[in-house]
């Protein structure tokens, strides 16, 4: 080949090789670009999920923080309030008997016809004599009569007076005014009658019904009969008690075992076993901890059902591995020079750990605590198995009382039949839960930066 015009053949070969390399390079660079694009697409997808999730929760939940509220002069009609004066302590009466009598009186007060008082007051406000009592009542929340009752029980002198009060509109009226329900649906599919809808619209236009901030979401307990006034107070306290239990138990135990495993444990079968154990526990599904709680705490130790103390114990066991692992990595990050310096100056091992190593890891331990508490705060499944999904309409006074928890309340609300209303209410509860978690993390970041600066 080389005999015939070697130069041109060589050139041709070079040309061919070059073009082969060029086309190969182009192909390879194309692949490179596509690969990078896939990466960007993946990141884009992940970020898009975050955005979609949050915008969905916010757009659904924020409207629920304002609720249709009717400002109305309520006439406490003395004729309708036909009841004896409130009992007082008689001579020779035991406190328990007085309490029983008082409870009887309060029950009688509850049985008074509050519905017609509300009905009369609304009728007076509208000046409409034709509209049916049921329609009048249907735009006011069912639980608002208890507001009247409470006002009366607190001050029986109200009988015969007229007082301006703020009453929550019913969930159906709220749905109607907010447009959560399709306004074009035929009567048969509407929750409110045509008259009640017209009434609600008129009151809204006249400004007697306003969209007011729904404070009761934070102050009321859950309610089934009066969905509009259902709130998170009970669930919030329940969650708070559980957090307390977790902080009191999981943090000291977790930090102590992390210190032992990282600083003292001799290398032997036992510590190996503990180590494998902790790593496995960290990956055990949370629901299995619920089964443990149901079998051991509830069925064996007979601790009360639905109590935050049991929930707290279960969550403690569940978060322990998280706290241990995070604390250990914080301990491991302490430079060996610090330990050597302490030991070299004659400190014992315990002194070295508690006087020198541990103070340096406070920010790390704090982070571990927050991670653990946040995990416990959002956990639902194990709580369902120890009866915390029971309907509890009271704020727990102690960790031994029946209670709900924030994530469980979300679970209960999403299952409510009044979907139109409770979809927004559930999202609002989710916003509260997420806000709580975000503020926990923010506090952690703040404290961390302060602690780190002090060193």
């Amino acid at each position, binding site marked *: 080949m080389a005999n015939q015009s070697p130069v041109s053949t060589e050139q041709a070969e070079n040309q061919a090789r070059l073009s082969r390399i060029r086309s190969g390079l182009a192909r390879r660079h194309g692949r490179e670009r596509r690969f990078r694009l896939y*990466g960007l697409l993946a990141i884009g997808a*992940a970020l898009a999920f975050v955005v979609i999730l949050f915008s969905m929760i916010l757009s659904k939940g924020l409207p629920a923080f304002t609720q249709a509220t009717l400002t109305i002069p309520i006439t406490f009609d003395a004729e309708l309030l036909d009841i004896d004066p409130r009992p007082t302590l008689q001579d020779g009466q035991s406190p328990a008997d007085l309490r029983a009598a008082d409870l009887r009186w309060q029950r009688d007060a509850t049985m008074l016809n509050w519905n017609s008082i509300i009905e009369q007051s609304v009728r007076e406000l509208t000046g409409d004599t034709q509209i049916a009592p049921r329609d009048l009542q249907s735009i006011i929340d069912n639980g608002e009569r208890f507001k009247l009752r409470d006002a009366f029980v607190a001050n029986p002198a109200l009988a015969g007076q007229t007082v301006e009060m703020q009453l929550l509109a019913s969930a159906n009226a709220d749905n109607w005014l907010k447009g959560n329900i399709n306004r074009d649906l035929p009567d048969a599919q509407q929750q409110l009658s045509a008259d009640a809808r017209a009434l609600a619209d008129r009151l809204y236009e006249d400004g007697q019904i306003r969209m007011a901030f729904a404070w009761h979401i934070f102050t009321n307990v859950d309610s089934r009969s009066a969905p509009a006034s259902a709130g998170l107070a009970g669930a919030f306290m329940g969650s708070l008690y559980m957090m307390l239990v977790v902080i009191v138990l999981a943090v000291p135990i977790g930090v102590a075992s992390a210190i032992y495993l990282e600083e003292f444990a001799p290398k032997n079968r036992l510590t190996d076993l503990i180590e494998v154990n902790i790593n*496995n526990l960290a990956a055990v599904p949370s629901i299995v901890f619920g089964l*443990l709680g149901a079998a051991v705490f509830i069925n064996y130790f007979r601790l009360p059902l639905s109590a935050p103390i049991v929930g707290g114990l279960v969550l403690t066991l569940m978060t322990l591995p998280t706290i241990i692992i995070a604390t250990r990595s914080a301990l491991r990050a302490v430079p060996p020079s610090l330990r050597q310096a302490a030991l070299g100056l004659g400190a014992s091992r315990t002194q070295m750990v508690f006087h020198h190593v541990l103070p340096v890891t406070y920010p790390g331990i704090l982070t571990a605590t927050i991670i653990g508490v946040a995990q416990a705060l959002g956990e639902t499944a194990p709580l369902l198995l120890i009866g915390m999904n029971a309907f509890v309409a009271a704020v727990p006074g102690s960790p031994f009382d029946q209670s709900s928890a924030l994530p469980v309340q979300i*679970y209960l609300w999403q299952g409510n039949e009044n979907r139109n209303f409770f979809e927004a209410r559930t999202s609002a509860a989710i916003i509260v839960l997420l806000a709580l978690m975000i503020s926990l993390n923010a506090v952690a970041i703040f404290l961390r930066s302060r602690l780190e600066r002090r060193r």
Partner: protein
Amino acid sequence: MYSLLTIALLLALLSIAYQQGWAVSRKLATPEATRLHSRPPYHGSLVAIWTIAPALVILALWALFGATASRAYIVMNLPAEIVDQGGNVLQSAIQRVRAIASGAGVAGEVQPYEMAAGAAFRQFQNLASATVLGSAAAFAAVSLLFARKRIAVRLQARNEVERIVRYLLLGCSAVAILTTLGIVLSLVFEAARFFSFVSPIDFFFGTVWNPRFSTTGAGSGEYGLLPLLWGTVMVAAIAMFVSLPIGLMTAIYTSQYASPRMRSLVKPVVEVLAGIPTIVYGFFALVTVGPFLAAFGQTIGVNIRATSALTAGIVMGIMIIPFISSLSDDILRQVPRAMIDGSIGLGATRSETIKRVILPAALPGIVGAFLLAVSRAIGETMIVVLAAGNSPFLRANPGEPISTVTVTIVNQLTGDQDFASPQSLVAFALGLTLFVMTLFLNMAALYIVRRFREQYE
């Protein structure tokens, strides 16, 4: 009142003991030449520990057995006919006696025997709390004196205190073992009770899940695990199908391509997904993803139900993305720099380096991360409870509702079932299955990841 008094007593004891130990040892140390083996605070702590320990033991014993003892005492003082009736009658009688003794009184007429029992119980209570507190204080005092006598120049108080501290730390780390033991024992025992109703073969190989909700009669209904297991596997597979590509590509991009600035921006945002409670994902699936998929299926002519394996799987996949991406990111960054530089130096493009050098080197770690993610998907509960439709049948179509092991555990234990019925106990057999499956996956994953670390360390 009682507990406040106890706490005050304990605190007083602690401070007295500490002060005593400190002062006595301090006096021993003379300026002339005598040097204590341990410094006074250690002597103080040692005396305090000696003092408080017996008191704590006595109080713990009372906390454990006190309730039983006082109940037995009340029963002893009640007339025989009430005790014989047992049940609610006895329970309410005991409560009335307690109320009378506490001074709150009870509503209604008070029987003379109740009055007498109440008075006796009040005495018993006073006596018992006096005895408990008194003996705790007495033991504490004796042991305080003893510990005080032990104080000497040569006493190795520091070493003793440190040894006690070390045992306390060991005790704390034993809690993890106790937890595992508790899980295994409770699952195994309750599952064994279940298997006394239903044969294990019917359970593990049965293809029909239909536990009838009748509380009486043994083995009513059919308890076949396979439909539930199938649902679990299907949802987990869909979840991995969503999360593995997205998570892995995210990790590759952030670890290999992204500028530090972009990395520090993207990583935390993606990890936000990991911090969101699963119930929120469940709600998201139910309200947004489900209806969207159903509408999407309609436009392309496929029947997809709003609550289906697909809905639950996709949302679970989204939840797992940060799990895979952060684990893989760690692993990808552990691949030695020299290998990457070598490949680039030979003229490979970045993507070729990633595909031919980094990924094969990191493969064991990524497999480990994958297994951990699968174990998480299998154990995930709330998303499937809300979005999978709870329909325990063997179906191959992911657009149909299914049920999983975790959902069934929740369903079986949240009803009004008697705890001892097979309908409730089956939850523990399911839990045991779940536990063994995840344990196996975790062990495999941890083993693989550890091997991978050792390879490059």
